[in-house]
């Protein structure tokens, strides 16, 4: 076996591992979202409820780019267009951040004034993204 064959083999294995990991993460996100369907999460600034306690809820996650995704995006960037693997990557990070925010306040019945903040963190050898979700948690008294 030549060096190239080994390199291509390793790359394909990584690609499969990344694909499986993404599927598993989506499955976990969807399962947790199903449990929290009755909780109201909105970007509305004004809360219609009286007699409630309010607290700032925050959830964040840092995801690192994997090698197959970086390669795929650099191939697509030559021609332009949507990098769907990246859209999914960011979508996963944001949904995970929102879920963590909801889970951080188990007593809250609603979350108002939701805001999302996504940043690209440059670490030199690898790059990762951070998604942060924060809102006012409405807790009944």
């Amino acid at each position, binding site marked *: 076996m030549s060096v190239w064959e080994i390199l291509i083999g390793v790359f394909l294995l*990584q690609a499969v*591992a*990344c694909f499986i*990991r993404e599927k598993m993460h989506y499955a976990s996100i969807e399962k947790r979202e199903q449990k929290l369907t009755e909780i109201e999460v909105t970007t509305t*600034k004004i809360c219609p409820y009286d007699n409630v306690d309010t607290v*700032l809820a*925050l959830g*964040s*996650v*840092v*995801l*690192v*780019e*994997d*090698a197959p*995704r970086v390669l795929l995006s650099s191939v697509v960037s030559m021609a332009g267009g949507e990098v769907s693997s990246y859209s999914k990557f960011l979508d996963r990070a944001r949904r995970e951040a929102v879920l963590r925010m909801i889970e951080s306040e188990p007593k809250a019945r609603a979350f108002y*004034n939701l*805001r999302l*903040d996504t*940043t*690209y*963190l*440059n*670490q*030199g050898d*690898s790059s*990762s993204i*951070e998604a*942060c979700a*924060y809102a006012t948690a409405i807790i009944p008294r």
Partner: protein
Amino acid sequence: MVGGEIESYTELMKESRVEATKRMIQQASELGANAIVNIRYSTSSISIGTSEILAYGTAVRCS
């Protein structure tokens, strides 16, 4: 290389955000406020391995 979550980084960002929030509250109480409304966070990657977290809001005094 393999992707996934960096938990130590998530933890670091969380701690930094708490620190930024504390400093904002400190500043607001020096101004004589008893509440901060419309808080926003903003993050930027300054250089390799360094990021800045900014927390800002409107300090108010309710009577």
